[in-house]
């Protein structure tokens, strides 16, 4: 009888887990087969962009959404990640792994410096100071024409060497590259936010002085959150540079920063998949607008205004309450 009971219990639980497993399997299969399912290369291009910028906005979300620190300087970290491999390919070598590791190292270095200056400050001052710090990097790549090419940027990062006799080329390969790092960051993000450290981040967002009173080292926690999110932004920049094959100062600009913030907020800041949703929506709108009109600036401006006024909780934030009702406990 006991065995039967256990079996029944197992049977009762198994369908749920099976369903979850199946969902994962189908999502993974869909992502892997995507380039072969879609009718044209255009959709693969769009998806690659979504993956890269989702990586970026997920990184930012760790800081903005979970720790409650609104950085307007992450565009510069994205740009640092993009510029280092570009400079390397121009002056030294066009190798993917060397480019990536030096790019990440640079993003790490700059994040540490930014964090040391900015983390002790909060609120509006933090917004302004990260903005200004980001501008330092922008000014460097924009102004130092003899090295960075100034406004023209740097071209020729296409087809980097990945293996001694294999270099990246073709839209599908970049799609899989972006997908690989997107999934890695997705997993890292999940691990971070479900860890005790992640809960401490949320605690700081909700009530900093209480966390301090509880004995948490708030400064250290914020510092780590800043650096982790900065390095992820840099990673997105590296992939972006290889994918487009060229970089220009816009990749390190203020607009890059604010657009990423917008993506996070639209999707739902402080939600796990929110940034991906926000990025997807913005990039789809961008592509549709580009087809029909030249008024992208206007549409983007209106998007900022409308999102702030009517959707500041974001898509996932709004769904969260309803999903809870629909799915019971999950």
């Amino acid at each position, binding site marked *: 009888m006991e065995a039967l009971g256990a079996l029944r219990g197992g049977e009762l639980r198994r369908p749920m887990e099976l369903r979850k497993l199946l969902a994962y399997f189908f999502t993974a299969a869909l992502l892997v087969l995507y380039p072969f399912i879609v009718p044209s290369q255009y959709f693969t291009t769009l998806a690659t962009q979504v993956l890269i910028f989702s990586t970026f906005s997920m990184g930012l979300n760790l800081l903005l959404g979970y720790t409650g620190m*609104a950085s*307007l300087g992450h565009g510069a970290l994205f740009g640092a990640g993009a510029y280092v491999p570009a400079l390397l390919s121009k002056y030294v070598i066009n190798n993917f792994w060397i480019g990536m590791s030096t790019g990440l190292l640079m993003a790490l270095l700059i994040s540490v410096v930014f964090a040391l*200056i900015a983390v*002790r*400050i*909060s*609120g*509006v*001052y933090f*917004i*302004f*100071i990260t*903005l*200004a*710090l980001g*501008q*330092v990097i*922008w*000014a*460097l790549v*924009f*102004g*130092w*024409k*003899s090295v960075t090419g100034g406004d023209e940027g740097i071209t020729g990062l296409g087809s980097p060497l990945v293996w001694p006799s294999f270099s990246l080329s073709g839209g599908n390969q970049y799609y899989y590259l972006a997908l690989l790092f997107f999934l890695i960051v997705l997993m890292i993000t999940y691990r971070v936010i479900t860890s005790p450290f992640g809960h401490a981040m949320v605690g700081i967002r909700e009530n900093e002085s209480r966390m301090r009173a509880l004995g948490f080292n708030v400064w250290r926690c914020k510092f780590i959150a800043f650096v982790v999110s900065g390095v992820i932004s840099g990673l997105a920049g590296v992939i972006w540079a290889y994918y487009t094959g060229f970089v220009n100062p816009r990749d390190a600009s*203020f*607009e890059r920063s*604010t657009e990423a*913030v*917008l993506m996070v*907020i639209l999707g739902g800041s402080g939600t796990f998949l929110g940034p991906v949703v926000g990025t997807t929506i913005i990039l789809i709108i961008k592509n549709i607008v580009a087809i029909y009109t030249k*008024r992208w*600036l*206007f549409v*983007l*401006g*209106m*998007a*900022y*205004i409308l*999102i*702030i*006024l009517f959707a*500041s909780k974001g898509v996932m934030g709004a769904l969260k309450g309803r999903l809870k009702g629909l799915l019971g406990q999950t």
Partner: protein
Amino acid sequence: METWIIHILNGVSFGMLLFLLASGLTLIFGLMNIVNLSHGGYYLLGAYIACTVMTKTHNFLLAILSGGLSIAALGLFMERFFLNRLHKKPLAQVLLTIGFTLVFADASLIIWGGVPYFVEKPAFCLRPIMIGKSGFPSYRLFVIGIGTVVGLLLWLFQERTRVGTRVRAAVNDEEIARALGINVRFLFTVIFTLGAFLAGLSGVMGGPFYGAYPGADFEILLLTVVVIIVGGLGSLRGALVGSLLIGLIDNFGKVFFPQMAMFTIYLPMVIILAWKPSGLFGAEN
């Protein structure tokens, strides 16, 4: 020697232009805790409007009035219908006002096109002033004069008038001020409109030498942000000192390190920040 004087005057006049923008921004922030990043957009629209008015009427006073007042009206509209919903949400204010800046940028692209415009100089500033053997545009001296007058008036307004006292009272303790019968809501709207007027005025004043072109809005906005970070958010004196400092550094940077021109502005800012996070004259938090 002459060249040095000219460089300094160039720097100071550009600094005064920045002061017109920074004073409005810092006033609005210091008094109402509202971050309005539309000031770059206000500058651009003010300059374009002044351009149109000058080519039609050649009357600089009219250009000042139309540029300043129309931007003031725009500010009033934004405060009444949008920003007042975002009390104490700085990031929302930042993004909303950036959104407006983008909309303004596209609107001016539609109306005025993508070509750079320079506002016609007023008739009394057409002849250069001789400094030693080289000529210096007298218009820039006029800008310095206007900046000084505006700074003085703002200081008098804040410290010496009844309205200014009320404003300071409202900032200090909003509830008590309300209890004393001060219409805080109205006062704040007045201040916000004044800040927008100053930004519009800066567009008119900057039009003849900085010009109006796509992208000028964010360029000048970011410089203004540097000014108020260096000077300290919310401090009028900080805005003045910061403006002059950045104006001079910008000018000398362009002369001595052309490739690093932007960098020379941002570097001192980082140094000041690392040493004094709240800026030179900002209140310590």
